[in-house]
């Protein structure tokens, strides 16, 4: 059984940000989630839409996933998530949008991602929420491994499409 390597360091360019962090170590706890959902942005809100990403106990080759372990390029991810919130908020006319994501180990059945979208009317909240969830999956430098009861693990292959203007794009995925 191979020991699980430690999480990558955040990098020497990690610096303090005036914006609250988007990352929480471990699973997002139910009482913490409830507390976030009770907050209201400082504008007239008629709808609050929420998404919670829950870890599924998938079966992979007769082994059951017992947890997911997340890692991220934290300083870049913080900046991109903040820009994503601002962009989607403007695009859908939201009163507020907030994204949180777990780092480290999250057991099956627990929450690893929370997105809250607030707007004056429900249509914008639904649309903005969906756009934010899809944007996190496509644009946030976050990676995950499935952990099995046997102690083995498997990296989940990312499906995010790279922008075609990237000069370092490699398209071969064996």
């Amino acid at each position, binding site marked *: 059984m191979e020991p699980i390597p430690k999480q990558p360091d955040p990098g020497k360019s990690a610096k303090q940000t005036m914006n609250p962090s988007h990352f929480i170590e471990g699973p997002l706890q139910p009482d913490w989630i409830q507390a976030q959902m009770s907050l209201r942005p400082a504008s007239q809100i008629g709808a609050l839409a929420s998404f919670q990403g829950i870890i599924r106990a998938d079966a992979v080759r007769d082994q059951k996933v017992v947890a997911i372990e997340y890692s991220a390029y934290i300083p870049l991810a913080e900046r991109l998530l903040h820009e994503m919130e601002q962009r989607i908020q403007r695009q859908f006319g939201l009163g507020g949008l907030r994204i949180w994501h777990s780092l480290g180990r999250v057991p099956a059945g627990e929450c690893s991602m929370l997105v809250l979208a607030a707007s004056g009317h429900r249509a914008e909240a639904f649309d903005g929420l969906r756009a934010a969830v899809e944007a996190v999956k496509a644009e946030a430098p976050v990676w995950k491994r499935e952990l099995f009861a046997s102690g083995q693990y498997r990296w989940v292959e990312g499906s995010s499409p790279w922008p075609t203007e990237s*000069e*370092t794009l490699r398209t071969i995925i064996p």
Partner: protein
Amino acid sequence: MFWKKRAGYKTEQRRMNVSLRCVTFEYPQEEYPSNVSAAIAASPMPITILFFGALTELTRTDRLLLDTETDGISDLAKLRMHLERLYPGLTGKPYRTAINLEFAGESDPLRDGDEVAFLPPYAGG
């Protein structure tokens, strides 16, 4: 002796709510001998290469330091070729790169002290 933790380390740890596994200690420079200060000022800083996700399985590390002069690395293209010689499994793998937190192209130059991240396809959420 005269080591002190990087200012703001504890605050940064609480704010990010994750465990920082790297602590930087700073030796007050006014206490360096003059010949040591000159040597440090003249010596090039290595570039830091960061690997993420499944790439760490190929490289067996999440971090590498390289000297741009010794290793003949002046831009991202040369760095990529150097790494693919070190880690043949990297060839053909999809990834994008960022230099100092900005997405980078093949012709982007590398300078002493840069941080270059190799980012495989994202799998968040």
